[in-house]
């Protein structure tokens, strides 16, 4: 069975500092990988995705994630965070067979302090 582990439930960080949110997954078949963000009182939004090709993917607001197949990881990074990045971040895996259901991690709360 597939699973997603987000290693940190909360990450406090000061504004303009770098941040890494960790995600590991387990699957015996090929997968698609996603990071979703949920801002306070808003719905889930796709931040970035890995389907195939280049293992480094980027979002429009400065986040990036790298697919590492050997370590089964898809960590999310940003070199300099802003107050507005405060949100819940969810790593997700879609199994590339059958029903294509997506499994989510428990989430990491990123709290950016001034």
């Amino acid at each position, binding site marked *: 069975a597939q699973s997603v582990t*987000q290693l940190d439930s909360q990450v406090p960080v000061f504004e303009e500092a770098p941040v890494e949110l960790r995600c590991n997954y387990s699957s015996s078949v090929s997968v698609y990988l996603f990071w979703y963000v949920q801002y306070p009182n808003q719905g889930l939004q796709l931040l970035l995705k890995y389907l195939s090709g280049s293992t480094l993917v980027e979002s429009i607001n400065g986040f990036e994630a790298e697919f590492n197949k050997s370590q089964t990881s898809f960590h999310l990074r940003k070199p300099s965070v802003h107050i507005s990045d405060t949100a819940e971040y969810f790593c997700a895996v879609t199994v590339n067979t059958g029903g294509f259901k997506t499994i*989510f991690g428990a989430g990491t709360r990123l709290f950016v302090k001034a």
Partner: protein
Amino acid sequence: GAGVSQTPSNKVTEKGKYVELRCDPISGHTALYWYRQSLGQGPEFLIYFQGTGAADDSGLPNDRFFAVRPEGSVSTLKIQRTERGDSAVYLCASSLKRGSEAFFGQGTRLTVV
């Protein structure tokens, strides 16, 4: 519509009652998903529709939960004999086709008292 619409946004019901939660996906999206999100946890997969048929219902917790999508568009999640443990935010998402980006609704917050 412009996005995935879920109604009602909030539902409070008494233990033992029956509830229906509605999801109106983005027009033209063939894939539709239901998830449940409890406080402090990530969304938990319930069921996936491809068109009118339930392609994967392995996440439904028990036979009190049922979902339909009769015309391949709007979907209804039905919960019979609700229990306090059913309290959660129920999320619906749709995608153009299976495996492509899923767009989520705002969710229905169900509270069973």
